[in-house]
């Protein structure tokens, strides 16, 4: 049974169609792997019974010859997506016992495509974090370890459970959400593919909101092809989300074979800060060579406002979060700590329900929106955001895609940087600009560090041009021959 977990989504799709194994067998193999790898703490809730039930239904549809695009494929769902009748926590104490009576649009689309949800994946509380150490349900471990060091490493965040479970073959793919890098950075840390599509490509309806103008769902998989398959199933206009785009969803998989011949690849000079590790700088150069060898032309470009992106992000995102998280008030659902008055109940509930990082961001957000500070912080941040957006617009006049490292370092040990929020926030320095601009971005595992840890390269393209994104990613993947973790 074990090797059933070694397949990619594309391979499993073929084999299920050929009846080499059943969806139930595939699901059971993954459920068994989940049991064995409980130590990773990748799941908050495992939904084995529900999964087996859905796998049986998949088998019926497969037998009848009308399986969906992801029929019988076992997936993990980040526990930020509301799932009908299944505990949804956002990894926060404040959502204790919350079982939504509705299903998020993205998870519903994945269900409609025939996929089988194995459980709800751990994350940073309310998706706030870059190491998956802020979860009320405990930190997630990275299945990778540095050579010769028995130190547990972080999987990155906030989609840490998603990245860890995909890398460890517990699921064939997982949903992530990316607000400032929460898909791309953990994908890089765990040696998998993570795609943040264009803002508006996937509906946000039913996804617990962190920062509404930035949040975007996307797939996390072991291969570029799998990401293309999964993203197509997740995407599409949703009248329930006013910010979702009324656009046809392209066949991303069909774009994969098109190569990069003739494409111009931008290499932004601002993404080479003094602290960038020489390994990463070298890998980046290698990535440029690979694309050149495949017929693309590297072009040095400038994104002059890059250095302002991180401070801008840490104003905009907490501002929106401070408002989005106001609804967790103990009145209608989740945790309530009784108090002497309504205000006292709010204060006690929220103090007990939110962890330190969430409280920090609510405080920052409340501050930057308050009377007398709004112009200096929030308004200014919005202006800088427009400039960052303009940087990309200008760059894409000259190039078709941009190549950068995904994160400035490989995965670090659990407990490191946890007392230094600024050092932690620097993890997102390369991913945040694309989030602010709403353009698509992906991380592809491209190599290993000297001590054997995954390193990722990030590809960025124009708004709605995920097809070019996938083409570049496929070439990188083919060239990198990245050593994925084996199924165990």
């Amino acid at each position, binding site marked *: 049974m074990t090797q059933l977990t070694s397949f990619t989504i594309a391979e499993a799709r073929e084999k299920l169609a050929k009846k080499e194994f059943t969806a139930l067998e595939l699901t059971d193999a993954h459920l068994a792997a989940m049991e064995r790898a409980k130590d990773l703490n990748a799941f908050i809730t495992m939904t084995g019974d529900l999964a087996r039930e859905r796998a049986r239904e998949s088998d019926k549809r497969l037998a009848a010859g009308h399986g969906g695009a992801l029929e019988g494929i076992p997936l993990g769902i980040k526990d930020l*997506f*509301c799932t009908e009748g299944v505990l*949804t926590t*956002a990894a926060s104490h404040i*959502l204790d016992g*919350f079982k*939504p*009576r*509705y299903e*998020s649009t993205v998870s519903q689309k994945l269900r409609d495509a025939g996929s089988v949800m194995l459980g709800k994946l751990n994350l940073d509380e309310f998706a706030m974090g870059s190491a998956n150490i802020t979860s009320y349900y405990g930190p997630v471990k990275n299945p990778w370890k540095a050579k010769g060091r028995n130190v547990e490493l972080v999987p990155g965040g906030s989609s840490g459970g998603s990245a860890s479970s995909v890398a460890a073959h517990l699921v064939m793919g997982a949903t992530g959400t990316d607000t400032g890098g929460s898909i791309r950075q953990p994908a890089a840390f765990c040696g998998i593919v993570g795609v943040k599509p264009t803002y508006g490509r996937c509906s*946000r*309806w*039913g*996804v*617990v*909101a962190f*920062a*509404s*103008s930035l949040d975007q769902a996307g797939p996390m998989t072991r291969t570029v092809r799998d990401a293309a398959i999964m993203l197509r199933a997740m995407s599409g206009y949703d*009248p*329930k*989300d*006013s*910010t979702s785009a009324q656009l046809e969803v392209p066949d991303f998989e069909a774009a994969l074979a098109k190569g990069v011949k003739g494409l111009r690849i931008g290499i932004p000079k601002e993404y080479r800060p003094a602290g960038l590790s020489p390994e990463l700088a070298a890998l980046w150069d290698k990535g440029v060579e690979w694309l050149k060898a495949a017929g693309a032309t590297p072009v040095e470009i400038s994104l002059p406002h890059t250095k302002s992106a991180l401070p801008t992000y840490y104003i905009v995102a907490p*501002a*929106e979060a*401070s*408002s989005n*998280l*106001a*609804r*967790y*008030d103990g*009145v*209608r*659902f989740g945790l309530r700590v009784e108090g002497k008055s*309504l*205000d006292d109940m*709010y204060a006690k509930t929220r103090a007990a329900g939110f962890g330190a990082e969430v409280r920090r961001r609510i405080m920052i957000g*409340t501050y930057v*929106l*308050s*009377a007398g500070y*709004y112009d200096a912080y*929030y308004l200014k941040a919005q202006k800088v955001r427009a400039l960052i957006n303009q940087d990309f617009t200008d760059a894409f006049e000259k190039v078709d895609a941009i190549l950068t490292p995904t994160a400035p370092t490989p995965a670090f040990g659990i407990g490191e940087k946890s007392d230094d929020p600024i050092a932690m926030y620097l993890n997102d320095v390369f991913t945040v600009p694309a989030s602010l601009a709403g353009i698509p971005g992906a991380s592809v595992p491209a190599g290993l560090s000297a001590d054997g840890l995954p390193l990722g390269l990030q590809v960025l393209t124009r708004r709605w041009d995920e097809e070019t994104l996938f083409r570049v990613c496929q070439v990188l993947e083919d060239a990198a021959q990245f050593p994925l973790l084996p199924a165990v």
Partner: protein
Amino acid sequence: MGYIIKGEKHDWELVIGLEVHAQVISKAKLFSGSSTDFGGGPNTQVSFIDAGMPGMLPVLNGHAVEQAVKTGLGLKAKINRRSVFARKNYFYADMPQGYQISQYDQPIVGEGTLVLDMPDGSTREIGIERLHLEQDAGKSIHDLHPHKSYIDLNRSGIPLMEIVSKPDIRTPEEVGIYLKKLRSILRYLGTCDGNMEEGSMRCDANVSVRPVGSTELRTRCEIKNVNSVRFVMQAIEYEARRQVDCYESGGTVDQETRLYDSHKGETRSMRSKEFAHDYRYFPDPDLLPIEFDEAFVARLRDALPELPDDKLTRFIKDFGLTAYDAGVLVAEKESAVYFEEVAKGRDPKLAANWVITNLFGVLNKRGIEIGDSPVSAKDLGRLIELISDNTISSRMAKEVFEAMVETGKAPDAIVEERGMKQITDTGAIDAAVDKIIAENADKVAQYKSGKVQMLGWFVGQVMKATQGKANPAMCSDALKKKLDA
């Protein structure tokens, strides 16, 4: 105007601005498909969006946007073709999202004007500062349990228009006229039913005072949520006096929010400035800006009904009504429509008189709306025809009208049943006249000797002889002809 508050040191005048929250007539809520019907069981009209559940997103109700634009056009206001929803952040148990979606620095409607028709026939223009769309909160119910509060979210998310006046209002009387006029326009437009008792129109008043002759704007107090025109006026009168007393005794007025207690007839402090919320407004990232083109506005403008000001002008011009009568008739759209049906092809002044004096009298006495009138416009119109063509006299008409009110029957049927037809047959009248003249030689002599006022006595006698059915004018003519011969 002259609403002057006499103080020991100064004469003071009032400066008033009004914020009216008008519930938009719409089947669905502003950002969800839930029903907006009044009177549903608690929490029966609540979607996941209205309840602020995790991951729920607002979707704008396009009809509410049309209603706001129509209202803006009705207030002769600037329509902003791009406006933005903002979140107003504060915590309250009946506000599930922890913020109200409203509009802040970019409202859908800008400056406009409302014309007040003063009782002396003059008019006064009050500036409209802005109109914006926002969602209502739910309702907290504190009296169902000794130490628990209940929450009903049926109102949560109901679309409101907040209509803000400039501080142009100077007297409590103008406040009353403003509210009635605004209500009238909203009802004409069909954008709000203006029902203050059910809370579909609510008013906050910003009140300050200043010495007569000064142009400064002093610290204002906001009086919240008063639920009738009369109470708003009373609250303002009380509040003005309170502020004058503060200043005259050497004190100052603090900026604060005050509540009106209609039982005690006084306002009292609800929230002082130190405890004022910092609402941390910012553009709602879940919603796109509202944008529309000029064609959208033009389509709504072309479909606007005739509004009270235009109708008033037309009634005066086309029907020769007095400004007062026309004002009474146009105040409610239904009254104006009723009147026009009565007046069509008939004597408009007579029609106005009957509608205002007789019909409104009955409606007021019974406490009913014109829509429930026991007399249809068609029947009242027919009654006026019967008067005009001398079938019945005005005096008889009053009797017929009373019967119409009681029985709901058409006037012709009543006239027929009761044999009330006026005698207009000259032969019958002449016969009666001849008889009276013959029987009263002494009275005839008096008349002929110059006592012409005796004519009235003769008319009375003829009427008596015909059981009141003779047409008085015809009697008079016939008598004069014979007596003067």
